[in-house]
């Protein structure tokens, strides 16, 4: 614990705090949120900040604070799906490629190269074109786009370990590959996977929010930060900035926090991104 604190530094601990607040807010949204996030009243449109409405209300008279809290749920679950699916499949593909090597490795590499040829958002939009807009489709499609990044890093790390004596000798003793992989290779690449997931969480949040902004992710009237930036656009230009700005800032702060923590854990290289 102390080691972790040292690694994070002051800013890193603040970032962890931010993440904790957001996660708790999302978990306990039904308890904390004073209003229903989807129901507003026409008489309550564009209220300013007050005790009744902490951050005011939007153009439909819905409480912005409540919407932010509920919005944290979809804004967090989306990226969570992405990094979980990415980590599982990326690792699976990488370890399969490394263990079998040869033809399996080169075939899997080709498939990953093919996925690399698509910009992330394009791949997601193609999937949405086929299966229709929803958070699940967007998140799963984005996972597919992220898998090559994760697989590439895990593969190169596992490749280095593959020929070390502690892997080789049980292999010569005839212990099955899947056992060695699970017992020895996996624990060694695990920290890398966690760091990669932390960094990718931020990227996924931005890209999913972008899809929601384009009307291809979370669908109204549900509360979602990306969607709120979009639905508050007209109000913003008419001089009521609260909805868009607060939702946008929530994204910025959360992504920056995840980015900083990931950076402290080991950096972008672990996410398989050159940048």
């Amino acid at each position: 614990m102390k080691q972790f604190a040292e690694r994070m530094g002051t800013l890193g601990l603040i970032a962890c705090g931010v993440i904790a607040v957001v996660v708790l807010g999302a978990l306990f949204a039904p308890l904390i949120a004073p209003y229903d996030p989807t129901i507003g009243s026409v008489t309550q449109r564009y209220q300013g900040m007050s005790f009744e409405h902490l951050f005011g209300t939007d153009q439909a008279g819905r409480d912005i604070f409540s919407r932010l809290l509920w919005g944290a749920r979809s804004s967090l679950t989306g990226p969570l799906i992405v990094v979980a699916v990415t980590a599982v499949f990326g690792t699976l593909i990488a370890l399969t490629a490394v263990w079998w090597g040869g033809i399996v490795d080169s075939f899997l590499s080709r498939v990953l190269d093919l996925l690399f040829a698509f910009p992330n958002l394009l791949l997601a939009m193609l999937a949405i074109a086929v299966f229709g807009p929803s958070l699940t489709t967007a998140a799963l499609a984005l996972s597919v786009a992220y898998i090559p990044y994760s697989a590439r890093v895990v593969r190169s790390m596992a490749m280095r370990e593959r020929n070390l004596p502690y892997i080789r000798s049980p292999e010569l003793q005839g212990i099955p590959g899947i056992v060695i992989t699970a017992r020895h290779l996996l624990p060694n690449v695990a920290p890398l996977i966690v760091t990669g997931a932390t960094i990718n969480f931020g990227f996924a949040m931005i890209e999913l929010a972008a899809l929601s902004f384009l009307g291809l992710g979370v669908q109204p009237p549900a509360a979602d930060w990306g969607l709120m930036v979009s639905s508050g656009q007209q109000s913003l230009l008419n001089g009521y900035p609260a909805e868009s700005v607060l939702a946008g800032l929530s994204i910025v702060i959360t992504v920056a926090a995840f980015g900083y923590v990931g950076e402290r854990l080991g950096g972008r290289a672990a996410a398989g991104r050159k940048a």
Partner: protein
Amino acid sequence: MTFILRRLAALIGVLIASSFLVFSAMYAAPGSPENFLVQGRTVSPEVLEAIRAQYSLDDPFLVRFWNWLTNVLHGDFGRSLANQQDVGDLLAARLPTTLMLVTLAALIIIVLGVGLGILAGTRGGIVDKIILLGSNLGFAVPTFFAALILMSIFSVGLGWFPVFGSGDGFIDRVWHLTLPAFALALPSSAVVARITRTSIREERDSEHSVMARARGVAERLVMRRHVIRNSMLPVSTIVGVHIAGLIAGSFVVEYAFTLDGIGTLLVHAVQRKDFAVVQAIAIVLVAAFGIINLLVDLFYASIDPRVKVETNR
């Protein structure tokens, strides 16, 4: 030279494979195209028959793919299901806006991102701290949010720039596309600035820079010839990756500013399941993405003598 040919061959392979992928995905999509065409109206089986014949919907899958691919190679991307327009014409009409937006954003990344990174890396102190903080926050700003904020401050608030639209003529276009380009370039510039700074820091203490100082070479020259020059090697790759990434980012910014570029066209086509348009744009974008990445690698090989282009990959 063989390196370039090999990379081109690989690119063509990837293009064919991804065309196949895209085409089969659209083919397998739930909901049939003729239902889309008749838009929920009840029509007689004869009319449906005619529509299916018109769009060759009854041919076997591979035949349709082959016809589509050969047509694309002849520059014929088919017709939009939504408004019957020729997809090639649609693309051609939308391309200039997107190209210009991406070019402007690329320039901003190079000038602002690399420039601020060099400033932070060489100056240190408070300048460094401010730029570092800015880049830590900047990379987290979604382009669409940056778009809205810039729009509300500089277009609506101050009235310096137009709110929507792409403009006509070169100067007017640049004027219309300035804010979108800044919004698009912001996160990338932040990342590029930070990486440039790190790279400068590393090169500043590199043995060849230190020894150049020890030989009596003036600091200004050491900076220019050893530190900045060499730190640009890794930076150029990063800049390239980010410029290629602008292609996808441009969809969002175009949509936010309602620019009539490829991105807006794609978003609308996806919303309306206009597969002919989606397919065409996907292929064009994958090609552009691949070509930019190839150019970046070639550029890198040309500035770093250690990269032997013949043996690379």
